Each structure stands twice: as structure tokens, then as C-alpha cells.
């Protein structure tokens, strides 16, 4: 039996699952954690050589990579701004900026 979970911060005690058990796999995708960020990586595609060093070090899979193994711009829904990618980039194609919002 697959239960479709529809739980949010206004759910009542009658609506929550017992013990908070999550009856659904892969649902971390629905939990957008990018708003935890205080610093933001900015991608400069002109400087990027597609060397492939940045995306393996991202702890949150926030750097999308296409079938051609080329990276795209950051997925800010999940990027927490740790800055590891900016540190490993040999070409200064990633710069960290203060999050404004």
C-alpha cells in the first residue's frame, strides 16, 4: 500500500503519520533546503573549462550535470552555500557572494 503523503506545517495531529514515519521514498527532493544559505556561489560559464572538479565535491548534488558531462548553473533550491565548489575550482569560475535576502 502506497500512501500519498500530504503533510505540511499546518497539518493537524489527526493527519500526521504515527511516529512521523514517511511512507514515501525519495521525498527529500520536496524539502527545499536552499533557504538555509547565507553565502551564494555564482557561476561564470565564460571562465569554466568543464574540468569536472566541482560537482563531485558538492555535498548536496546542487550542481546539475548533463549527459554530455557538462555542468550547468547551480540549483539554488538545495545549495546551502558551503563554498567547497568555489575552493576547488582552479579557474575562478565560481565566486562566493553574500546572500542578500
Amino acid at each position, binding site marked *: 500500500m*502506497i500512501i500519498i503523503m500530504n503533510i505540511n*506545517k499546518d497539518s493537524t*495531529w489527526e493527519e*500526521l503519520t504515527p*511516529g512521523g514515519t*514517511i*511512507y*514515501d521514498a525519495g521525498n527529500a527532493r520536496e524539502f527545499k533546503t536552499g533557504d538555509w544559505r547565507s553565502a551564494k556561489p555564482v557561476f561564470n560559464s565564460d571562465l569554466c573549462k568543464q574540468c569536472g572538479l566541482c560537482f563531485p565535491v558538492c555535498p548536496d548534488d546542487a550542481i546539475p550535470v548533463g549527459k554530455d558531462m557538462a555542468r550547468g548553473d547551480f540549483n539554488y533550491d538545495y545549495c546551502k552555500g558551503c563554498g567547497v565548489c568555489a575552493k576547488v575550482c582552479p579557474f575562478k569560475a565560481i565566486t562566493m557572494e553574500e546572500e542578500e535576502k
Partner: protein
Amino acid sequence: MSIRERLSGNEATAFAMKQINPDVVAAFPITPSTEIPQYFSTYVANGQVDTEFVAVEGEHSAMAACIGAEAAGGRAMTATSSQGLAYMWEMVQIASSSRLPIVMPLINRAISGPLNIHCDHTDAMASRDCGWIMLFSEDNQEAYDNMIMAHRIAEHKDVMLPLMVCQDGFITSHSIENIELIEDDIVKEFVGTYKPAHYLLNKKEPIAVGPMDLQPYLTEHKKQQAVAMENAKIVIKEVSEDFEKMTGRKYDFFEGYKLEDAEYVIVCMNSTAGTVKETIDKLRELGVKAGLLKIRMFRPFPGEEIAKALSNAKSVAVLDRVPLVSATGGPLYEDVVSGMFVEGINVPTINYTYGVGGRDVTVEQIEKVYADLQGLKDMKEPYRFLGLKSK
């Protein structure tokens, strides 16, 4: 036909576990509960059960292994006492909040220090609000019977809470008494198989157990636990009635002994009830209307029912088998009197700490309590020691 045997409380408990035949038993030895996993591991070695026995390195791990096994969809059990329960305390609450109906015999023992290995109820009382159902047992028969009823209560879909079966360390755990056992096949039918609605090893429904539960959710999950505890009252009644049909042995939230017309009532739990009954018989011959209210179901606490049962008494003494070190009453006393307060019943009720660290409780001491109750003039001295040596 039932089987007549002579078993200690620990043997009777281990025997019940053999008949229940759980999927996993994870336990660590600690006096006085050590014999339970010891006997049980013999059953495992002899191939008399199908259980996976996990010889863990401590009680924290014992409860953690039970949590994992129960979440996976199995039936898991352990047993402990005193410091063992203290050491697993963290996981005890993970079990209840994750709604895993683990069953654990708790062989009551003092909590150190100074170091003591003998009976009192400090271990149980220190865990009384951990969200577990707690049943108490006067003798070996009650300990066995509570074990047989445990899974039906804990695993009920409206409950899904872990359950402790308490009995007095050494006093009943190591005393051999006559006991009536139920045949294996009848126990098997009564206990049934565990069929959880959701479990980790169900490949058709991948689930996550024990997630983060921040400000928007924890209050509501605790409300669910509170409702489950309320539901447990109904289920305990139903299961006890079914058990009575099967064995003829009647169990309720509490047992009254000569309680109906009693003017002076003692409230207590576990083995001391036997001493109180003996004393009541003596006093009744002298014309003293003494009575007993022995609590079997401590969590959920039947405050309303207890208050009503005590409403016609002239005075009541609640015996707490824990040290009173809080400058107020003991845990059992506070639960009883708050039940009375809520029901608007105002019977003078005093509190004794007794039997701490295995101190023997005698008929003479219980007679002293009934004498105090008969002479009770006011509530100037509500918190008292029983059997204290003083100048």
C-alpha cells in the same frame, strides 16, 4: 488443561517468552534480570525457539537492536533492571515515539548510588513518563500472565506502544512459586502473529522511520502518543477479559482486596500487596475494616477509576517503593492524589516510602500503617518513612 509447575519469576517470564517465540531478543545481563536472557539463550541454543538472539555489548544497544528489529517488521523483546534501564533510557523513548510495540520485562531494582542490587521501584518510576505501557505483577503468576497478554495490548492498531512488565527483583524474580502455565498452542493462538501495517523490510512500500520532527510537528506527534495511551486502557480491558475467558484468572486496572467496605485503604504495587493482604486478614478478624487497592496498570494511569474506588474510605496510605528525596510525595502518591483532586474526592491520603534497596517489608510494618490511618487526625505529616531506623 493448564500445566502446574514451580517456577521463579524470572523462569516464568523466560518461559512466556519461549511460548511467544519472538523474532529477535537482544539483551545484556544485569542483576536481577540476568536469568531471563540466560534461560532464553538456552532455549535458542536448544532450538526450542526460532528467535535471533543478539548478545549486545550493553543495554543502550539492546534497546537499539530491538528498535531496529521491530521497525523492520519483527517482534522484538529484551529484559533489564535498574542501571540497565537507566543506560537504555535514551532509546526507551525512541521506541515509544517511533510507535514500536517492543515488550520488555523490567525486574525492579534500586538505582545506585550508593550501590544496591535489591528491589525497589526507582528504575520503573524514573521511566514512568517515557510513553511505555507499564503493568505491575504481584507474584510469578501475574508476571507470566501479564507477559502473555503484553503483545496483544502493545501491537493493537489503536495502541502501537511498547510495554514493560514489572515485577519485584529477587522477591518474586528469584522466588520459586507454584504457577499455572498455559499450553504452547493456546498461547500461540492467543498471542497471534505480528502483522504491522508498515515496516522497513516491505519492498513494496519503502518507508523512513524516526525522521526530524521540528516545531510544526512534535506537539502533534505527542498528542498521538497520548491518544494511543488512552486507547490502551480500552484494549487492556478487552485483552484481560479474553484472558479471563481462557484461564479463569481475572485482571483489571487494579485489584481490590476487601476494598468495597474498607475504611482504611493501602494503595501499593507488586509483591508488597501479598503482605498487605495477610495483614488485612488479621485486622479484619479484629474488626478493623482494612482494605487494599493494588495497581496493576500503572501506565496508562487509571486516576479516575482509582479515585472513585477510594471515595468511601476514611483515610488512605499510598506506599511508594522509592526514596522520597524531592521534599514532596512519591510518584504513585502524586498520581493517586491528583486523580482524586480532578474527581473532586477529598479523602485524607498520606504517603510512605518503604522497602527501598530491598529492605524487607513485614506484616508488623503494614499493621503500623493501618494503625496510623485509624489515628490520622490531620494532614500535618503527609510524607512518612516506613521501617526507618532513627534515634
